[in-house]
């Protein structure tokens, strides 16, 4: 690695070193970021979080770049546009606990969860109401509900007047009247038209709008996303506008103080906030272009760490084939998976039960959290944490890198987090329910009474209790998004006509062939047992994949009874599912809980490498997609692929 990476440190070398990782935040991500900052052409690429589009929508409309925070528990009414909330979305355990609170009628009013999606997922099954709609029309329906809120004067006028710009028409410098959000919505999203496009009856749209307005605080989430499938930007903007109309933006949806401890690693500058990284990050779309066309950078070497593009990116095997052409590929992995198969060098990484590590709060967490990962079993011989690999390389490569990092191993950096947390003068060590409630109360009344006085005490308590958190739910309410002179912009300057683009989101991929040739729309979905594709390594999880259908170990395709009839298919038979980009073999499962235009296939199986439990089992729906990104955003596009199904 030293021999291959040393030349890339020279300022006149235009070849790039790229790290592709599933770590978006936390110590290891920062270490990678700062390591790459020493290279003139170093690029960090993340597997995007499923909340990435929603977060970007909030940033676009609120003009800020902070960390997305959602106060789900306080919501009394939730319009969920296709997010698989109970299947690994956001902070999974936090979301489940919020769901439990919504259903806790002992505290008064039960909250309502409405799941709006083409497929009756587990989230849809557990929701109070499932509203099926045509695939790809979630954003249109959101603006249809906005129409009803505006037309019936149900929105929070005071909030909008005080905190938002671009709602009413205005006159530009040339004296021309520019239509505001209200005019655009009232003109283009009449209920009859929206009902025609989405397949949701106008009376249902009107009822949802009235319920949404009458049960505050109300929250709108979406559009369609899961643990690593971001939705669309314009669809998410349409959904977030509902939060602004209800006055929930800045309270239920806001930005929290970062969960990261901002520990300074060596002489590298501290990151101030997410979105203003010490080193700018590249996107999967850029990486795909780079390996295909040598533009915007030419990839000389690639490090894969906790990322498996064959499962986590549309295009699946096309990604691994393309990345295999990179001159020098290194894989840090705990299993001999697809990344190891294409690597020139495999560095066995410890399992999380074998190593010291740190886990920051997942995206959308309402409170800052620093969880401590501690070794529970002795590591297998020959494994080394990717952080230690980088620290050793920094010393050996010399130059700027040697100055950048202290003489320490990764476990020492994890332990040093306690010092950085102490400096923040806030938060508490994890505690039981009663103590946590007490800490929340203290926080609300302006007190901070930590159980530790020094970094050493904090470290010992974190080891005993598992981590640190800032219990103040008010961190969402205090969000800077709408404070001071900053205002919510319905029509941000960079995207003044985005509502009209929402209409085009509903149209499906133009490169997917005609609807006559490929009459169905593919809905790849994630299952909780295979969270992020990683769970397939655990056989007990593969066994329990689709208990709602009695399925496991293999890939099935869910299809509506009418559609099955139309194609002469019967339940449990094998079939070929084809797109213009590939085909996979699937077991047909007929389900009533599905829009007839949709065919739904779980992601996570169809692995070509791995243990005997997963290798060669099932099929990978990512192979039916193209690796190209959505035109208007840099993250992978899972939605909208046209397919056909034929008996095998």
């Amino acid at each position: 690695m030293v021999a291959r990476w040393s030349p890339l440190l020279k300022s006149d070398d235009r070849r790039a070193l790229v790290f592709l990782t599933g770590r978006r935040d936390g110590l290891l991500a920062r270490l990678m970021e700062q390591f790459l900052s020493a290279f003139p052409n170093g690029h960090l690429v993340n597997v995007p979080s499923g909340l990435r589009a929603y977060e970007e929508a909030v940033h676009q409309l609120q003009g800020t770049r902070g960390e997305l925070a959602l106060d789900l528990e306080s919501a009394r009414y939730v319009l969920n546009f296709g997010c698989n909330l109970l299947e690994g979305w956001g902070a999974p355990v936090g979301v489940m606990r919020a769901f439990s609170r919504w259903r806790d009628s002992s505290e008064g009013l039960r909250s309502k969860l409405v799941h709006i999606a083409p497929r009756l997922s587990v989230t849809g099954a557990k929701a109070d109401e499932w509203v099926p709609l045509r695939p790809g029309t979630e954003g249109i329906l959101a603006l249809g509900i906005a129409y009803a809120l505006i037309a019936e004067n149900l929105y929070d006028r005071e909030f909008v007047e005080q905190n938002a710009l671009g709602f009413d028409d205005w006159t530009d410098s040339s004296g021309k009247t520019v239509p505001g959000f209200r005019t655009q919505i009232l003109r283009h999203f009449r209920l009859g038209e929206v009902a025609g496009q989405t397949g949701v009856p106008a009376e249902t749209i009107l009822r949802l709008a009235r319920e949404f307005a009458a049960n505050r605080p109300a929250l709108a989430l979406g559009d369609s996303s899961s643990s690593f499938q971001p939705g669309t930007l314009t669809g998410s903007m349409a959904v977030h506008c509902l939060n602004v109309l209800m006055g929930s933006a800045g309270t239920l949806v806001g930005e929290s103080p970062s969960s990261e401890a901002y520990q300074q690693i060596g002489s590298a500058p501290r990151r101030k906030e997410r979105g203003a990284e010490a080193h700018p990050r590249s996107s999967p779309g850029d990486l795909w272009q780079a390996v295909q066309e040598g533009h915007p950078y030419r990839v000389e070497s690639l490090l894969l760490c906790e990322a498996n593009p064959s499962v986590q990116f549309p295009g699946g095997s096309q990604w691994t084939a393309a990345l295999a052409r990179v001159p020098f590929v290194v894989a840090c992995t705990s299993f001999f998976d697809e990344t190891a198969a294409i690597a020139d060098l495999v560095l066995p990484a410890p399992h999380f039960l074998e190593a010291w590590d740190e886990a920051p709060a997942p995206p959308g967490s309402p409170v800052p959290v620093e969880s401590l990962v501690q070794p529970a079993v002795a590591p297998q011989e020959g494994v080394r944490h990717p952080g230690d690999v980088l620290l050793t390389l920094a010393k050996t490569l010399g130059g700027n890198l040697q100055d950048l990092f202290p003489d320490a191993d990764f476990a020492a950096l994890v332990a040093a987090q306690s010092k950085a947390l102490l400096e923040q003068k806030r938060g508490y060590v994890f505690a039981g329910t009663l103590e946590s409630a007490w800490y929340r109360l203290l926080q609300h009344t302006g007190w901070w009474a930590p159980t530790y006085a020094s970094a050493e005490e904090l470290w010992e308590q974190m080891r005993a209790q598992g981590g640190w958190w800032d219990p103040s739910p008010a961190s969402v309410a205090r969000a800077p998004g709408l404070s001071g002179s900053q205002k919510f912009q319905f029509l941000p300057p960079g995207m003044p006509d985005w509502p009209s683009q929402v209409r085009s989101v509903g149209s499906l991929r133009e490169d997917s062939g005609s609807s006559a040739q490929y009459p169905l729309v593919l809905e790849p979905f994630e299952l909780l047992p295979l969270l992020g594709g990683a769970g397939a390594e655990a056989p007990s999880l593969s066994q329990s994949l689709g208990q709602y259908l009695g399925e496991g170990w293999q890939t099935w395709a869910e299809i509506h009874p009418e559609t099955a009839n139309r194609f002469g298919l019967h339940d449990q038979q094998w079939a070929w599912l084809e797109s213009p980009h590939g085909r996979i073999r699937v077991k047909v499962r007929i389900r009533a809980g599905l829009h007839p235009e949709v065919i739904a296939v779980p992601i996570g199986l169809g692995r070509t490498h791995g243990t005997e439990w997963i290798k060669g089992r099932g099929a990978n729906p990512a192979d039916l997609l193209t690796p190209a990104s959505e035109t208007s955003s840099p993250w992978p596009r899972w939605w909208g692929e046209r397919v056909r199904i034929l008996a095998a």
Partner: protein
Amino acid sequence: MARWGMVIDLAKCTACQTCVLACQAENNIPVATPGQSDQGRAIQWIRILPLPEGENAHARLRLLPVPCLHCDEPPCIKVCPVDATNITPEGTVRQIFARCIGCRYCTTACPYTVRKFNWSEPRWEEPWEEMLNPDVSIRPKGVVEKCTLCHHRLQLAREQAQAEGRTIREGDYVPACVESCPTEAMVFGDLDDPESRVTQLTRSARAFRLLEELGTRPKVLYLSEGEWSGKRA
């Protein structure tokens, strides 16, 4: 003497299957191979039962976690020819593996289909055997097994209470499924204690028993999902 029982609140259950996995790890239940799964021979002491209903926009899917319901009138014990299954004074329907002759009358008699027959020798690949729970015996090929309400945990809790010179308190003894539930949808305790939370929940208007008309009187009860009314409870 306590009479142990459980309430599962379906409004709070997210069908996440954490209970299924916790039970599997706690009770040394081997993973079935894909071939065994295809033959319907996978063993789970608690499973998620899907109940689909309706069509198109009215389609619904109800998901029920179903362990052994530990009936007060269990049909399974009446058909066992060798007394390999019986009911303890505390109401737990137990299975005595050493006595079981594998006739499977009990699996047929159980209306909830929660009893599982071991069609093959249990197998754990190296190093998985290191994670086996030493408090739970491994069942051999040819016997029937099922949920024991983590009876070994009761023994440990009882020993602990005796050492401290007291009786078992609420919360001392909790099965693995209940302990692991992230939404606290499962509540366990003494059904004969009028003050216990589980007893109070059984008095809810939402409480029901599975196939109540059979007269098996299960000690695992459910709270129905209920409906959103928009009004204060």
